[in-house]
């Protein structure tokens, strides 16, 4: 286990470095700059802004400054650490820099404010996904071929196929303007959560239901389940103790990356429900050419995906003793 984690940590650093370097170059290769606007800036003004954010430097110099082993800024020295106050600058010191678009905030502050919001929403969406998806999947598998199975499968297909802004619109119509139970948008109270987390969780619930059903159907035909039945165990016990454990494997494998996606928010759901999460920044930072912010959200996503995948691989061995970590690593 320790060896597995160590090896994973090593690869993590390599992955991170690759992501940083490739994004750094790609981002700056895109046409259009962070300071262009309908009302063009005076050339001297644009020059000042570019100088403030070191965009007038050659790319390699900007890169080293961003990553942090070297620092040429007015108050820094060529090699960071010379003054003994801080061993590294930039990324190595977890300093993600200032945002170009939201100039009153550093990227770190923006992430610190918006990540918890998205994480809270995502956690609730996961609760919806599992609370709806698992029972529906099990029910459909146990009652396979019946009308109930058909209805549940239809529901799952709809949950995946319907775009979330359609679901959101319908729910707002019913629960806000029809019944008057919930506020249309906003953030801070339990009522504010229910609709957006449901909308966000619905497609995941649908996937979970389908995976659970498929996994269970496969397992239920296996020899060891037949043996369990043959020795006279009650069907419920067979299901819960023997079948479900193995059937959940694909669900758990799916949940890892899904959780990373769900926790980092959704542009559409956040916009429709006016939620100040991090999902908005994934798209807007790129559109605004806000390089540091785009880099910040990319890094967060990389870390989350990597961490959760590692977690899933570890969890898989608990569910299925046939899987060993060495293979997974």
């Amino acid at each position, binding site marked *: 286990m320790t060896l597995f984690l160590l090896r994973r940590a090593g690869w993590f650093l390599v992955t991170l470095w690759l992501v940083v370097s490739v994004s750094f170059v790609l981002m700056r290769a*895109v*046409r*259009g*700059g962070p300071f*262009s*606007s*309908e*009302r*063009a*800036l*005076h050339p*001297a*003004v644009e020059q*000042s802004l570019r100088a403030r954010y070191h965009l007038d430097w050659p790319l390699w110099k900007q890169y080293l400054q961003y990553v942090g082993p070297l620092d040429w*800024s007015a*108050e820094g020295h060529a090699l960071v650490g010379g003054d003994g106050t801080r061993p590294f600058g930039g990324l190595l010191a977890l300093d993600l820099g*200032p945002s170009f*678009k*939201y*100039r*009153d*905030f*550093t990227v770190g502050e923006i992430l610190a*404010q*918006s990540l*918890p*919001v998205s*994480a*809270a*929403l*995502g*956690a*609730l969406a*996961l*609760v919806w996904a*599992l*609370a709806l998806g698992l029972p529906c999947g099990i029910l459909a598998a146990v009652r396979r071929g019946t009308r109930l199975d058909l209805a549940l499968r239809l529901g799952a297909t709809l949950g995946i196929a319907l775009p979330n802004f359609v679901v959101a619109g319908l729910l*707002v119509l019913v629960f*806000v*303007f029809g019944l008057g139970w919930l*506020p*249309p*948008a*906003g*953030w*801070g*109270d339990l009522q*504010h*959560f229910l609709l957006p987390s449901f909308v966000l969780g619905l497609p995941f619930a649908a996937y979970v239901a389908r995976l659970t059903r498929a996994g269970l159907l496969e397992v239920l035909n296996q020899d060891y389940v037949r043996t369990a039945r043959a020795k006279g165990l009650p069907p419920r016990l067979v299901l*819960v*103790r023997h079948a479900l*454990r193995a059937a959940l494997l694909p669900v758990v494998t799916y949940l890892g990356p899904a959780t990373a996606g769900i926790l980092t928010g959704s542009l559409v759901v956040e*916009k*429709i*429900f*006016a939620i*100040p999460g991090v999902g*908005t920044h994934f798209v807007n930072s790129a*559109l605004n050419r806000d390089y540091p912010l785009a880099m910040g959200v990319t890094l967060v996503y990389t870390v989350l995906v990597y961490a959760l995948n590692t977690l899933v691989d570890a969890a898989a061995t*608990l569910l299925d003793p046939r899987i060993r970590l060495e293979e997974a690593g």
Partner: protein
Amino acid sequence: MTAAWRARLRNVLALALLVPLAALALALARRARLPRAEFVYSNGSEVTTLDPATVSGQAEGRVAMALFEGLTVKHPQTLAPLPGVAERWEVAPDGLTTTFHLRADARWSNGERLTAEDFLFSWRRLLEPETAAPFAYQLWCVRGAEAFGRSTPEEREARWRAVGLAAPDARTLVVELARPTAYFLALTSFHPLFPVHRRSLEEAQRRFPGRWQSEWVRPGHLVSNGPFKLVERRVNDRLRLVRNPEYWDVASVALRSLDILALEHIGTGLNLYLAGEVDWIDRVPAALVPQLRRRADFQAAPYLASYFYRVNVTRPPLDDVRVRRALALAVDRPTLCAAILQKGEPPSWSLTPPGLAGYPRPEMRHAPQGADEAAHAAALAADRAEARALLAAAGYGPARPFPPLEILFNTSETHRDVAEVLAADWSAALGIEVKLLNQEWKSFLDSQTNLRYDLSRSSWIGDYPDPNTFLEAFTSRSENNRTGWSSTRYDALVAAAAREVDAERRLALLAEAEALLLEELPILPLFGYVSQNLVHPRLGGFHPNVLDEHPPKFWHWQERAR
């Protein structure tokens, strides 16, 4: 422990994991709880910064107007300058020297006195190139200011002494202009010229060298002088402002607190307004305008902004003025406005929008528009006949078909609709094949700036109610020209207007410049904008005006709906 037990335990644990997950989510969100303010409004996207000197957008201007105050304040309806930090002012007969008398009780939100020195500091900061203020050039009308703004750090002090700004005492500010500037008094209520608090700014710069910008505007750090002050801020969510007890005119500020929301989604804004959670939204979904127009709380008013197409005059066949004129004539503007835009946008044959007081606004030559449907059809037929004749004169006909054109626009439903209508008009009336190309905003700007387009969707919002704010953009040296068009005569007319003392003659010169622009047509005029506000029916002190500016200082609740 038996294996069965362990399995059961694991199942229970897995389920139990969901409960703390949900609890954690709720706890995190509860921290964000903030009861709504007395007045809540939607301000579009998150503002770039609260620093009034370095921003240019409307959303930023609205925040600055609540937090800060200039020498003068705009009247909420007429936009005429009212006393602000200056209680009175005198303009010398030559129109060049203005003496502002600051009120004795002008104070910062921390209780410190606001003096004429604060304006010297703030305006110097605005002009310094390192500040990177987009509107610094607005102050170049002050004597010596342009030279100072273009100076290197070494020449800075010497050049500063030559700038026509002086503070003989704490309550007097003397401004000497380089040339008479009709709109100078209006500029003093424009946010780049608002004062900023020197001590807190310099302290932030000293203590937080790399990130002073985010430190000095932080709630608790930001010192301002307007009717409201900042108490809380959450990125992409809201700014919470409360009445500033140190404000000199606090007695007439009726609202105790304001929430300024960053709401990007127009439909969400409308939902929140309809549910009573937001009291003012400044844009509504285009498709709902016909229904919303029937509401008493919907205000649509002419807005000081124009929608037009830039023409790349460096690309044949668009380098031929006859072709540009043919394109401009063939568009059915009244139908575009009535059937597609539907908000009451006025069709336009000019660059400047209507509503500029005293300005003899010229139009491009076109058949006079009649009031009824038959007259409109006749005018359009006449214009299109002329357009076809112009194309024929330019050498295009059955023997030599017109090459296909491309319309470049930035991604938006409305822009696509307009582009489709124009493409259909040109195809039907002139037989020109038109392709549409949309690009996301920054790529679009890049294409426009580098003249990589045939025709490009454009708009211009006036900064102050004067034609100069529109016409200056198309001078040869302007970065906002972006058409490749340049005319020495046009440049000379705009420059002559800037030197002209007499108000009427100045506007006549600008009208002559615009007439020339509309003869050459590096732009195809289309329509003027309208503002579209849904405002709480009981809010008083909120009036439609051409700048769509609404100083919150004057807002109050009325007993009855408007």
